[in-house]
């Protein structure tokens, strides 16, 4: 059965890619992508329900591997891919009608969306750390032309920076993986499996802690670049700002979590092998620095999507900070925050897409009076901003609160106070800019009316999810997170 599940999760996006490569008709591209992302999401649900029963699922030859942690993240990633695919149909149809997008661009978009999903699945299902690396670099390459999608000066600039910075980061991560391999060569019986996560964990206590710590530093810089931890985050506002809104959403809700997943795998390994507080201190410092660096840029932002990108830097910081605290409660908070952040970011980027369609601009100075122009989207915008900045009754509040209590009960009082201060200041910046966009008088050139009424229900579903997670956590989700926490404990 494991073969079937792995085959579906990896194969469906590949089939989607091939079909998109062959057929160029808009309706076929849409149908193929909706089917491939939809079936991948269903397979992910199948995976998670299987893993809940058998704990670990691994293919016979040992290439593929899934446990509570990977299954949980696969569900989040494939779920956001499905929502993005649903939104993209309406978004791109409108852009084609407006003459912003050619049919060739449309074809490339759907093709690369399928490739992107495949590369993320490759990272999440690889047992071999070398494959995990290959998949990570491939995610950058798959999204390069999506970031450069509009072929403006600024988008090519953003894509260039994105590929160069992430490739440098990931090259350093490869050195970290080689050092890990080196530390395991003598310990793991067959050298063929010395790169396998499953065999490394079995012998973790015999690995050389000094080499592994050095390896972790390189891996942290490398995958930290992919996740957008400060100070390696500089590509993120450019890439998120220039990519089409649904692609930014999938990068913020999918790709970020894929990079965090890679970091978590190495974190577990180093904690088991070296013990002590080496890795967790690094996580706490990088987490707080990321939150702190995001703050001034959020306060002076002119572009809403760049604002969201800095918010993504902040929330990656929050998750890494929580992982650094290292108690089961903190792990629970981190994983719950992963989900909350993914939903809220998708909601906000897609709403930003609607605003962009209506105003033809993502600059906040040009966007005023949205509540009169597009009442439904504007409501989602302002409510979504309250949700992402950690207000009750939304999910983000619950996970941030969990993380803070974990920090205080572990005696991290100073970091926890810093945490609260930064979150509060970021809220002020966010609300200031959003209120200016939503209220006031719209300029006369803007036509009233929702940009794309057919996708509003999607935003509703996302908001309902955030609200639900703020009120109570359904027990299947609870169990799922618990099994991921169990993996994180090593």
């Amino acid at each position, binding site marked *: 059965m494991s073969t079937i599940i792995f085959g579906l999760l990896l194969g469906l996006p590949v089939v989607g890619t091939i079909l998109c490569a062959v057929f160029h008709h808009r309706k076929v591209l849409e149908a193929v992508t909706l089917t491939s992302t939809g079936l991948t999401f269903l397979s992910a649900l199948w995976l998670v329900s299987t893993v809940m029963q058998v704990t670990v699922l691994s293919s016979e030859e040992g290439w593929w591997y899934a446990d509570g942690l990977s299954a949980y993240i696969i569900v989040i990633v494939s779920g956001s891919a499905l929502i993005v695919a649903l939104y993209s149909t309406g978004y791109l149809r409108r852009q084609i009608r407006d003459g912003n997008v050619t049919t060739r661009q449309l074809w490339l978009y759907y093709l690369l969306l399928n490739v992107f999903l495949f590369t993320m699945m490759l990272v999440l299902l690889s047992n*071999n750390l*070398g*494959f995990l*690396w*290959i998949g990570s*670099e*491939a995610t*950058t*390459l798959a999204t*390069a*032309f999506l970031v*450069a999608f509009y*072929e403006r*000066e*600024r988008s*090519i*600039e*953003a*894509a*260039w*920076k994105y*590929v*160069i910075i992430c*490739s*440098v980061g990931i*090259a*350093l991560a*490869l*050195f970290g993986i*080689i*050092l890990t*391999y*080196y*530390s395991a*060569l*003598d310990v793991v019986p067959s*050298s*063929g499996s010395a*790169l396998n996560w499953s065999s490394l964990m079995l012998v973790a206590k015999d690995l*050389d802690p*000094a*080499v592994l710590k*050095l390896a972790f530093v390189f891996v942290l810089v490398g995958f930290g670049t992919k996740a957008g931890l400060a100070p390696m985050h500089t590509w993120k*506002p*450019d890439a998120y*700002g*220039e990519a089409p809104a649904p692609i930014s959403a999938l990068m913020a809700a999918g790709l970020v979590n894929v990079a965090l997943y890679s970091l978590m795998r190495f974190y577990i390994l180093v904690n088991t092998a070296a013990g002590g507080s080496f890795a967790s201190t690094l996580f706490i410092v990088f987490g707080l620095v990321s939150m702190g660096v995001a703050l001034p*840029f959020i306060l*002076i*932002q*002119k572009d809403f999507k*760049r604002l969201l990108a800095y918010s993504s830097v902040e929330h990656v910081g929050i998750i890494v900070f929580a992982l650094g605290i290292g108690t089961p409660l903190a792990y629970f908070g981190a994983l719950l925050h992963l989900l909350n952040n993914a939903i809220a970011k998708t909601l906000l980027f897609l709403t930003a897409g609607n605003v962009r369609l209506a105003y033809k601009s993502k600059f906040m100075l040009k966007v005023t009076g949205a509540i009169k122009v597009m009442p439904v989207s504007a409501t989602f915008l302002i409510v979504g901003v309250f949700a992402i900045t950690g207000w009750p009754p939304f999910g983000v509040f619950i996970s941030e609160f969990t993380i803070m209590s974990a920090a205080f009960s572990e005696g991290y009082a100073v970091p926890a106070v810093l945490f609260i201060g930064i979150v509060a200041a970021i809220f002020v910046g966010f609300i200031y800019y959003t209120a200016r966009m939503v209220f006031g008088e719209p300029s006369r050139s803007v036509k009233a009316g929702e940009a794309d009424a057919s996708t509003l229900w999607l935003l509703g579903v996302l908001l309902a999810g955030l609200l639900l997670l703020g009120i109570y956590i359904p027990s299947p989700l609870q169990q799922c997170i618990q099994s991921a926490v169990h993996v994180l404990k090593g």
Partner: protein
Amino acid sequence: MDLTNIQTAELLIDIFAAAILVTAFLIVSSRSLVFYIRLFALQSFFLGVVALLVVLGYGETHILIAAVLTIAIKAIAIPVVLTRVIERIHVQKEIRFSISITASLLLCGGIVILADSVAQSILRSPHADATAVSRVLSVSIAMMLIGLFIMMTRRKALTQIVGLLTMENGVFLSGLSITYGMPLIVEIGIFFDILVAVLILGVFVFRINKTFESISIDSLRSLRH
């Protein structure tokens, strides 16, 4: 000369590793883009030779394909692609520096010393005798750092690509030196990724050239904050 003799192989590996480092220094002191690419091709060729020597001298046959791929992709295919890019865009072939050549070379000398001390601390671990070529580790770390240095101080789009590839060569050499290279299928995947990355970056160089009329990344300044 008997290449399967361990001592001969060791000597030759040392010589070629030194030659790789020399090419990195020559890249740093070079002013012409064409030269950059030729030196990179030479560097990759030497790297392929080192890999071949590991195959011959130590019987690590699984590296053979990686060695051949290094020469085919990094010493031939990528330089050809990059040379085409230069010819097609009629770029001004002079490179401007943010640091003078003398200062650059001095800094790179410092980098080599730093790299050697990092390498020694890695090799101090209990299984330092994992491979017979671990001496080359200092060269490989120096290459990674020099690649990074090139990317930070040479502001042309194409020099950034060469800097990145120099880093990648360093990482490949480090794998060769302390682990006799990664498993073959992983190496093949890495080569594929690098080749695709260069092709994508090549396309971007064309587009940047079309929109900015120059391929200096100094003109990429519209995205701030």
